[in-house]
């Protein structure tokens, strides 16, 4: 009788766990679908107005499945995109990107215990833990890297935040080592930007930057217009290469932005390209 009771309890636990996993999968699928719908919408203003509703929805899904790594990643990505591209007020940007990074950290930590506390362990230990990452870890470390990078940018007045940049670069390097075409080669775009942060006179690596940008363009078959915009803004301006700057931006402004998976980003890229073209005479 006792054995039966124990078995029943165990069965109930397994069932409960299966149910919650099913719900988590469904909600995670919904979150992914929301993200895809947003990224394929070219109406920047409508997307900006709609995202807060989806953020509340995804937050509530995470409340229901707080250890779902895929939901946490979706929450991190959407909060991150919103803070980076749609919020003007600095204090709100910080608040939302804090939440995004919190989700990304949790997701990575639930994925693999070695990915907990990656921001606070000594740098040498960080590097050795990262070596253990395999192909299955790419979504976790990539989301952490991208969210962290945006968080650093938003918190660039905080020197403790800026110290994390080297770690973000290593995370993205690892993603590229494992699968450089992941997320249409976006890791190359971020690495290109990071390599162009410092001019060569201060130890920056313009050649490395250029190679990453060209790889990002090549992997996306030229569909990712943001790669060209960041290439112009970060590399061409740093190198004072006005011809390259203008060529890249003219390409972007003349391209069809409505390419599946890149629609929102390409519309944002065209807007940014127009701003860069307008400010070019002040720069060169």
């Amino acid at each position, binding site marked *: 009788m006792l054995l039966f009771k124990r078995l029943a309890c165990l069965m109930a636990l397994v069932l409960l766990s299966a149910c919650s996993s099913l719900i988590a999968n469904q909600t995670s699928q919904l979150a992914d679908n929301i993200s895809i719908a947003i990224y394929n919408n070219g109406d920047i203003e409508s997307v900006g107005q709609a995202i807060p509703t989806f953020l509340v929805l995804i937050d509530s899904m995470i409340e229901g499945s707080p250890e779902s790594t895929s939901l946490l990643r979706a929450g991190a990505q959407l909060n991150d995109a919103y803070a980076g591209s749609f919020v003007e007020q600095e204090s709100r940007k910080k608040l939302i990107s804090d939440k995004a990074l919190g989700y990304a950290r949790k997701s990575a930590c639930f994925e693999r215990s070695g990915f907990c506390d990656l921001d*606070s362990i000594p740098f040498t230990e960080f590097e050795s833990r990262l070596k253990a990452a395999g192909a299955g870890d790419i979504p976790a470390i990539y989301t952490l890297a991208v969210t962290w990078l945006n968080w650093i940018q938003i918190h660039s007045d905080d*020197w*403790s935040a800026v110290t994390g940049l080297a770690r973000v670069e290593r995370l993205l390097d690892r993603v590229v080592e494992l699968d450089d075409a992941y997320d249409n080669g976006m890791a190359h775009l971020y690495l290109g930007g990071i390599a162009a942060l410092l001019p060569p*006179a201060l*130890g920056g690596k313009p050649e490395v930057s250029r190679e990453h940008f060209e790889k990002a363009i090549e992997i996306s078959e030229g569909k990712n217009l943001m790669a060209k915009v960041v290439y112009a803004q970060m590399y061409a301006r740093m190198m004072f290469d006005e011809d390259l700057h203008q060529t890249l931006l003219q390409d972007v402004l003349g391209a069809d932005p409505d390419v599946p998976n890149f629609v929102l980003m390409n519309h944002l890229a065209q807007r940014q390209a127009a701003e860069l073209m307008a400010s070019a005479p002040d720069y060169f």
Partner: protein
Amino acid sequence: MGVKIAIIRVFMLFLVCAGTVHGATIKVATLSPDGSAWMKIMRAAGKDVAVQTENRVKFRFYPGGVMGNDEVVLRKIRIGQLQGAAVPGGALASLYPDSEVYNLPLKFLNFDEVDYVRSKMDSKIVKGFEDNGFVTFGLAEGGFAYVMSRRPIVTTKDLSGGKVWIPSNDPSALRVVQTYGVSPIPLALPDVLAGLQTGLLDTVASSPIATIALQWHTQVTHLSDIPVMYFYATLAIDKKVFKRFSPEDQATVRKIMGQAFVDIDRQNRKDNEAAYQALLNQGITLVSAEGADREEWYSVASKAEKNVIDKGYISQEMYQEFEGHLQDFRNQAGQIRVNE
């Protein structure tokens, strides 16, 4: 004969052209990366100057070292290709050696001393630059450099046993570290991170801001708490060019750029203090020399300082004035402490 006159005319035209500033644009080069706090403030001030002078004076900036290192930039100013540079004070030392008086090794104990001495002497240094061909708009703090290493550097012997970086072509730094018995490894700035990563170097001296911005913080584990050198930077404009503007426009530029440099000066102090704390938060260990070990650091620095003064790198007059202000402050501070 006709040809000769034509040549003279062309030559005269050249002389006339050389006497004007093309489009009244001051071209300024700097190593500072675009997007840095410095560049943001200088660009904003440049725009303000253009508005206030109704475009009679405009600034165009070349950030990130695109015009070459400080030495090359000064050469370009001499031939008129550039009109100004935002550079560390040391870059102008060949024109005005006394400007390096603030850079004497281990001279300041803390920022209170810096603030007092600078309040007395900045104007003298600014005047010194101007007497030697460059109009500047105040000095902006670069901060204190601290010794940072992969090993705890507590005593001067710890330092002399290290693989210590100094900037290439920096005779002042070479003189100082040699006094400490160090055989340094001179490297250009862009190569330092790789030097640390490969083990060619294990010790650098740098400000907290620069350590983080250049990512050296990922390669060091210890920070020694003695400020080994104070440094500053300035925006220097070729005086010949500046004097061609009307007195009203000169006053406008001085006012706007002067305020910009007050802002940069304050911001850098805040940033360096925050960056120092950020380094410690990153797990870098603070090491401190105590008692005789600490005194040894200062006593060797005094020898290096004596060498600089005896050899006339900095004039006796400048040194005595500097020393007088520093002692005044220490006496007053001691008095305050006694009274407390």
